[in-house]
């Protein structure tokens, strides 16, 4: 057992923290919430120069060939700083499925572009039925000529409006199970027939409606095997879910730190409010909750990095952290009082994202049901 980060990981963490504090102040975060694109090309370029987009990609695709644990640590810092932009969608949802299931040609074509930040990717997974499972996939891809034609509507697709390529999850046949008959395609986002619209959300996270109307994709852009694509989605989801958890842990840590600093300096009744037992209990509970989140997140990330089966761990981890992030940001606002309700205060940035993050790839009830199945209920 070794529950410490390596020296290199500590270094990665402090480099990321310093960089983001300087290059991504909260003023930029706020500005980008109202920005049409939702990201800063300049910050994006600088992050790419640090090698972040290709952190876990092999060197032959211009990556840094570091481990999943390293990526987790980086994403945790991004969550702490709520870095706006398509890092998550491009790296976790776009490049990982190609890394897991792509042909050599596909890897050669797409991965170096992701690593350099030249191409932005995302995954078009969910639909208006808002389901997390394979049975929810109804967007159809039908064989036609040398390729396929996609029809249907994807919803809640993060950053599709700025994406160059979409990993589109389609149904190619009505199988005996929901999983049977799912096929993935790498779709050029500028293909004729694609309409994309950004929907306003409480987290300003640029979720899009993407309508496919007779969109053609060549055969060579099929990712993985015909009808057998769900396992790629499942594996990608596991990694993306834990990366999302890392982002959430980072956010919860930031909210907790802000709260601890505030209750030490805010004076009422002639004393810092942090000396009152009610506030002390809140803070102890928040700290406990964050510790639990961090432990779970690291343990499951370790399992994934080791290639161990982790379905139950992923669900346990996301299930806990969903509730924890909401709890910590809500208590943080409570400890701050009315000032925490203002738009100018940073806490709202975290509080709004906590709910959105819960809903991403499985809310708490969904995760609990996965756990229930895993323990044999």
């Amino acid at each position, binding site marked *: 057992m070794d*529950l410490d980060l390596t020296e290199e990981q500590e270094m990665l963490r402090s480099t990321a923290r310093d960089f983001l504090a300087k290059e991504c102040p909260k003023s930029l975060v706020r500005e980008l919430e109202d920005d049409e694109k939702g990201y800063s090309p300049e910050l994006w370029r600088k992050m790419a120069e640090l090698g972040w987009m290709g952190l876990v990609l092999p060197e032959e695709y211009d990556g840094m060939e570091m481990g999943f644990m390293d990526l987790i640590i980086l994403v945790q810092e991004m969550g702490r700083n709520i870095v706006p932009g398509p890092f998550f969608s491009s790296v976790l949802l776009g490049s990982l499925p190609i890394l897991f299931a792509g042909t050599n040609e596909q890897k050669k074509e797409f991965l170096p572009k992701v690593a350099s930040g030249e191409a932005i990717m995302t995954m078009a997974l969910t639909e208006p039925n808002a389901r997390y499972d394979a049975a929810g996939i109804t967007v159809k891809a039908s064989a036609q000529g040398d390729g396929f034609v996609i029809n249907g509507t994807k919803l809640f697709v993060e950053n599709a409006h700025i994406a160059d390529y979409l990993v589109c999850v389609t149904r190619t046949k009505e199988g005996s199970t929901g999983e049977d008959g799912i096929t993935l395609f790498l779709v050029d986002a500028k293909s004729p027939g694609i309409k994309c619209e950004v929907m306003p959300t409480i987290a300003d996270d640029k979720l899009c409606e993407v309508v496919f109307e007779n969109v053609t994709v060549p055969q060579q852009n099929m990712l993985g095997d015909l009808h057998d694509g769900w396992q790629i989605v499942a594996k990608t989801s596991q990694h993306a879910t834990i990366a999302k958890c890392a982002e959430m842990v980072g956010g919860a840590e930031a909210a907790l730190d802000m709260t601890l600093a505030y209750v030490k300096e805010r004076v009422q009744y002639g004393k810092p409010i*942090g000396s*009152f037992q009610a506030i002390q209990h809140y803070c102890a509970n928040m700290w406990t909750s964050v510790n639990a989140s961090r432990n779970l997140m690291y*343990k499951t990330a370790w399992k994934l990095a*080791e290639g161990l089966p982790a379905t139950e761990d992923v669900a346990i981890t996301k299930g*806990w952290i969903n509730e924890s992030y909401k709890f910590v940001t809500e208590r943080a606002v409570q400890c701050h009082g009315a000032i925490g309700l203002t738009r100018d205060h940073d806490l709202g940035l975290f509080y709004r994202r906590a709910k959105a993050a819960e809903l991403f790839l499985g809310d708490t009830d969904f995760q*609990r049901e996965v756990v*229930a199945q895993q323990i044999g209920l």
Partner: protein
Amino acid sequence: MDFGFTKEEDAFRQEIREFLRTELDPDFKGRTPLERFSREFTRKVAKKGWLGVGWPKEYGGLGRPHTEQLVYSEEMMYSSAPAGAHILAQNMVGPSLVRVGTEEQKKEYLPKILRGEQVWCLGYTEPNAGTDLAACQTSAVLDGDEWVINGQKMFTSFAEHADYAWMTVKTDPDAPKRHRGISMFIVDMKTPGITVGSMDSMFDYPLYEVFFDNVRVPKSAVVGELNHGWNYLTTALDHERVFMGGCVAQHRRVFEQMVEYAKTHYRNGKLITEDPIIRQRLAQLAIDLQVGRLFAYRVAWIVGKGVVPFAEASMTKIFTSELEQRLANTAMQILGLHGPLIEGAHAPFDGYMAWEYKFSLMQAVGGGSNEIERILIAIAGLGLPRP
């Protein structure tokens, strides 16, 4: 990072399981006071050398790393092995003596504890010193070569069986800060002037009171330095909290039993596991159990680095004790009308869950109430100002 166990740790776990399979009756439930307290079982554990599993080798311990102590604790707790006759000596008195005892005290007590021959109780709580242990009123006054103790201790676990008490006494009533006037004493429970009384608890355990009426003990009863007892008490409590973190393994077993029950019993014509609310509740407990287990790992890891995990141990204790209450409540919920049955043909698990429902109140109160533990986290761990 590495959350895995080594081959040695896995082998050790197997060895303990094998031992428990041999030594514990298949019907053993670990519920009655008799089941939880067995000098015979303690001597068997001692024979394996496990009472000193984490003690330094120079004092006769095995000096095993903290991860193996964790394995030991998990397995013993999982099977509710009777630990009453050694638990306090093993986890609190022994390690404290190693750290602060005089050479004489170490020579006198450590070997006997390791052989499982001495039962110890902790005399901290008094009628007017509960959470506020520094309000201790039991006094010791020097008279010639002897200390004379007068006062009363309360809720003293195992007092009736104990050979020795490890207890706080007021030795300097005029100390400018009251905790500086407290010393730690080792008192032979057979000393004239000591009487033990008991109150019944709602979970069949007697809760003891110990009265001290002009009890004369030698000067050598003082642990370490005079008036340094508060220090020793707080570090000893820390061992207790570390140990309590291991309790989560015991809760895991109860959980597994409830899962098995839900899978094999019907309510309203349906398997209990088909009820979506029960599925959600059991899943949440599975999540909580994982959290509790990782807390215990973290505490063991920190201790292994030579750091005292004050806040982390408090956190673990709070979480585990409250988890126990949620677990007991969910168990009763699943059992429905059968839940409160204590015995008889209709009582599931021989009434174990009904007992656990009552017993689950204890850990949140004992070893530092959860309220004061939260304040300790806030002040010692998070640097918030004192009230």
